[in-house]
């Protein structure tokens, strides 16, 4: 961990404030079954207001039960996303309502076809560990949409995946999908491929469906990420410290919920609070506060020994331009340097304004750059090359030395898209902008990449599950 914004003492103060919030103010959870579980454990529950006040002792006890690391496996079991094990993971967006085919085109509603394109695309990008659906197909009814999205996503990548869960009834079919994929329930539990995100509604309340569906996924002990999007000054106090304390309280309450549903469920600490723009009345994705929030939240999550997920590498810009580069690059560099486990939701244009592969291409280059910053410097004796320096001597050159040939590829990062040409060469090559190069690269990948096919018999089996979901969930709606 090389980036820090909080001292040990400040971490402790935030922790204490969060416990006071949970004990004195509490949270609203509109789910009777869960509230009675809280009551059984001695929490102060008001069944009428659906409000629970949780003592510091109970919070700490439930927190201690939570699983502190987990691994998601792709169809190809060697493709893994490890949480809480010192690895860095990158995922693309779980789904956006709108889609932009090319920058300068108008945005349009996303479709299931876009899910296929997006996932195939992220399958090709080496740095993306978890392809997300990126599109939220508006043509499908919400009752079974996520089941169809899960299937489409699985078909188009061999990596672990992410998409938005909806409710308990549809989650049941998603559980069936992973069981069918892995062969049986035991293997499905041992080898999770995706996991739900529990999003508390700031300030201090929880959505019924988000909680309810965990009863289904818990049967496989499926990991859960908990990520409230508290917005400073809007749904949280107008101060960084106050927002951190409330955000942390909401995550802790979410962790308590998971452990009351099933003890031992592995969790990921989603420190994804944001600033809010008092001028445009829009949430702020990037900006200096985002860097501070993300580093601070990583420190808090690590204080609890949990895997951490933060919203960095994002931008408020509507084009993959200078603003986008600045915002994605700086926040991602700081977030990774803080030591979080997963950095998310790449491929978004502006603040959740649409999905765009042009952005994703740019971010994939930024990730590569930032990964290189996070390297360990090689300090082996031979790297100092004192004897070579001696051989070359004053005024000589290192270019033709064997030592150089042996080392330069490991020490130097090579861009795919950034321009470093001589001026005239750049002109001769068409004087292209970064935006243009992103688009070109995008088109190359779209034209060439084919993910490994899902076996025919499995495809059929999953198709049946989607059809069944469609039948059952349509009639009950």
């Amino acid at each position, binding site marked *: 961990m090389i980036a820090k914004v909080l001292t040990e003492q400040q971490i402790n103060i935030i922790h204490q404030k969060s416990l006071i919030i949970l004990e004195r103010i509490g949270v609203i959870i509109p789910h009777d079954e869960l509230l009675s579980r809280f009551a059984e454990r001695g929490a102060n529950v008001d069944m009428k207001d659906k409000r629970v006040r949780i003592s510091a002792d109970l919070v700490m006890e439930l927190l201690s039960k939570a699983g502190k690391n987990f691994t998601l496996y792709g169809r190809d079991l060697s493709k893994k996303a490890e949480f809480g094990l010192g690895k860095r993971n990158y995922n693309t967006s779980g789904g956006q309502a709108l889609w932009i085919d090319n920058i300068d085109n108008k945005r349009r*509603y996303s479709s299931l076809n876009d899910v296929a394109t997006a996932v195939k695309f992220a399958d090709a990008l080496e740095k993306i560990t978890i392809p997300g659906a990126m599109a939220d197909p508006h043509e499908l009814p*919400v009752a079974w*949409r996520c089941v169809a999205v899960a299937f489409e996503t699985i078909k188009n990548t061999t990596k672990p995946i992410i998409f938005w869960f909806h409710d308990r009834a549809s989650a049941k079919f998603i559980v069936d999908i992973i069981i069918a994929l892995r062969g049986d329930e035991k293997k499905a539990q041992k080898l999770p491929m995706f996991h739900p995100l529990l999003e508390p509604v700031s300030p201090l309340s929880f959505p019924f469906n988000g909680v309810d569906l965990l009863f289904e996924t818990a049967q496989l002990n499926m990991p859960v990420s908990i990520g409230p999007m508290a917005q400073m000054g809007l749904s949280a106090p107008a101060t960084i410290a106050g927002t951190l304390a409330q955000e942390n309280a909401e995550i802790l309450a979410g962790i308590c919920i998971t452990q009351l549903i099933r003890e031992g469920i592995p969790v990921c600490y989603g420190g994804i609070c944001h600033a809010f723009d008092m*001028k445009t009345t829009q949430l702020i994705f990037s900006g200096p506060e985002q860097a501070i929030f993300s580093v601070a939240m990583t420190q808090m999550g690590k204080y609890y020994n949990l895997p951490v997920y933060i919203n960095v590498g994002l931008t408020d810009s509507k084009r993959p331009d200078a603003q986008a580069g600045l915002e994605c690059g700086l926040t991602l560099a700081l977030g990774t340097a803080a030591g979080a486990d997963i950095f998310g939701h790449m491929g978004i244009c502006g603040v959740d304004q649409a999905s765009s592969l042009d952005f994703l291409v740019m971010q994939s280059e930024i990730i590569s750059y930032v990964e290189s910053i996070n390297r360990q410097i090689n300090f082996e004796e031979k790297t100092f090359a004192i004897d070579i320096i001696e051989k070359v001597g004053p005024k000589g050159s290192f270019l033709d030395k064997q030592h150089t040939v042996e080392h330069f590829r490991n020490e130097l990062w090579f861009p795919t898209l950034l321009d470093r040409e001589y001026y005239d060469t750049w002109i001769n090559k068409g004087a292209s902008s970064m935006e243009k190069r992103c688009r070109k690269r995008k088109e190359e990948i779209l034209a060439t990449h084919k993910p490994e096919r899902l076996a025919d018999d499995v495809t059929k089996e999953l198709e049946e599950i989607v059809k069944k979901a469609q039948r059952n969930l349509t009639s009950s709606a």
Partner: protein
Amino acid sequence: MSQENLYGEISDAIVNLNEDKATELANKAIDENLNILNVIEEGFGAGIRRVGELWDAGEFFLPELMRGAKIMQDCLDLLIPHLQGGIERKTLGKVVIATIEGDIHSIGKTIVATMLRAYGFEVYDLGADVPAEKIIDEAIEKNVDIIGVSALLTTTMLGQKKVVEILKKKGISNKFKVILGGAPVTSKWVEECGADGYAGNAVEAVELAKSLLHI
């Protein structure tokens, strides 16, 4: 103190976001048995219009706008019971607003409601996750001019269309103007629904409401 001076002081108290002063002046108007309608129109109303102008000019930010509207609202709650002769307060118009069923995104809707209030509309905010039928029942009961429906999810957007359809079925679409908003909503969608207007943010929402009522 002359009436004009009092109106000026009230207006200043709103612009300065001075709750104590605004409340004190509202109580003073009640104690002195002044014409409450005039106090509201020329004192508080003038103040909130100045707040709106400062927002338009980029000098006020959202919290200042919302705070001004809140102080104004609290003072109106004090004053309205004392309106002489049961005269109904003159407002720009009445609006019922809600986030549609199945959708818990409430932030944008609340901002729009507050802005409309600040500009002098009488607003009934029904909250989030509200069924179309309930919105319409309220609109009829409160005899509003405008129905505002917010949706942030592509799935719940269909509920916006439902509002228009129910109004048509009941044969009362000409009684209300329906305005729609929320992140995925576009003017094209509004057209498709057969609704009356679209606004991309709260300032535009005020302009839209005014223009629909020819103000």
